[in-house]
């Protein structure tokens, strides 16, 4: 399995030239696409996310690693779907209105794609109405909201309130994250989950998506 470590290391180094070749090589060695994804690409991206969180590396390194990861995923994606590795569902993400910071949100988006979700990224400065409208029209199970500024956090509550008003609370789950956000704040505004970091956010979204599908599916159904 040395090849998987090499994929992870190339990804950590942000080498999008090497990652596709190594990904093909791993497949040629007979390793299942899902294993290449989990133990190669995602393992590497997890290290990148953690190093970024503790300020060991900075945003440019993360962006280059993400490019490398997408280069590898382009090869794996058709194989994963033909192998019957189904999508885990759709997630709408964005930074809330007034907030132009989208680094953390982008990182979560990358990791969610890696975990098999279809991600609709609405970008930054997203209004509450847009989160809900997009989640409805795209048949999403989860809305993920990020804020870096305390001043913009109230928009998260607006989204939760809007879902309640439209009777979608529970069918479309909500998760929030970002530097000023806490588990307590998630509880206070009635959000379904809080993600402390990227890895935890992905785990929570997996649980939420499963719960949302158990409740009889999504908004459009």
């Amino acid at each position, binding site marked *: 399995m040395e090849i998987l470590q090499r994929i992870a290391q190339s990804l950590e180094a942000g080498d999008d030239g090497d990652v596709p070749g190594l990904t093909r090589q791993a497949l040629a060695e007979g390793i299942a696409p899902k294993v290449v994804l989990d133990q190669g690409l995602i393992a590497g991206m997890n290290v990148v996310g953690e190093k970024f969180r503790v*300020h060991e590396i900075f945003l440019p390194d993360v*962006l280059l690693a993400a*490019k490398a990861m997408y280069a590898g995923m382009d090869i794996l994606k058709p194989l994963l779907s033909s192998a019957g590795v189904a999508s885990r569902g759709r997630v709408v993400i964005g930074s809330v209105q007034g907030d132009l910071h989208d680094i953390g949100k982008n990182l979560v988006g990358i990791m969610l794609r890696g975990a098999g979700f279809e991600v609709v990224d609405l970008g930054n400065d997203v209004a509450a109405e847009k989160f809900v409208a997009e989640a409805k029209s795209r048949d999403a199970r989860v809305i993920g909201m990020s804020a870096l500024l*305390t001043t913009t956090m*109230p928009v998260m509550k607006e989204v939760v309130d809007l879902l309640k008003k439209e009777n979608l609370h529970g069918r479309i789950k909500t998760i929030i994250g970002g530097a000023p956000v806490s588990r307590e704040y998630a509880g206070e505004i009635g959000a379904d989950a809080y993600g402390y970091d990227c890895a935890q956010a992905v785990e929570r979204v997996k649980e939420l998506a499963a719960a949302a599908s158990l409740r009889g599916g999504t908004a459009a159904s």
Partner: protein
Amino acid sequence: MDGIRARCGRGEVLLADGAMGSLLMARGLEKGAAPESLNLSRPEVLEDIARLYLEAGAEIIQTNTFGASPLKLAKYGLAGRAAEINAAAVAAVRRTVGDKAYVSASVGPSGRLLLPFGDTSESDVLDSFLLQIAALLKAGVDAICVETMTDLTEARLAVQAARRLSSAIPVMATMTFEPTPRGFFTIMGVSIVAACRGLEEAGADLVGSNCGNGSAQMVAIAREFRKCTRLPLLIQSNAGIPELRQGQVRYPETPDCMAKMSRELLAAGVSVIGGCCGTTPDHIRAMRRAIDDGAKMKPGDPAQVR
């Protein structure tokens, strides 16, 4: 009135103004609207804010042009109106302050990531800054203030754009740092020593930091800057890190806190002291008194905070 550079060169300390965005919101700026759209629709709001800061004792008043580069305005479909938006902002402040204060033109980030990390070329970013700064200069500003930068390449492009258009205009440049276990870095990984070197080489006359930090960290940042450059320094601190209380945003640092910080920044050798997010005219008034008291003390005076 002598220029900013000459006065800094003589060892004078100048007071800049405080936050703009919160005052715009208090005057009806709608969520999701471009703050700079008010420059055309309600310039009297800009006059009102400039007057408050002038009366509080600020000598450098910033224009409402932080996001008025065409690349940034494009997000609101206003790129084509960049020149008039910048000109209107300068005119409003000038009408209010006359020659009683310097009009400093705010130039913020493009909001785009440069290649190879993002999708925008350096020449597109340079062209965008050139257009904005040409409009600001034509409208008669006294200084260009490139601010809140995190990417050194982009910050340098803005400074170079100003320099290319005018060798005489004072150019100030600040970046936003965060504390890490290995010292202060911008989110793009720029250290204070790298910022000093890069900004000075691009042609900045004053360098420093704004936003992102409260007073304690800003004093530490200022001291670090002082070790890295001989250029005059510019520091604009937030009134602490914002907190959410019962759905209301609150900046924790009082005018007294920021007056104390001003004394420490004086001692650290900072030439231009101002405020960023959460700093109100009341804060600026308290900082005015602190700076005036500091100026009365002779060098070597034991009462001086050094």
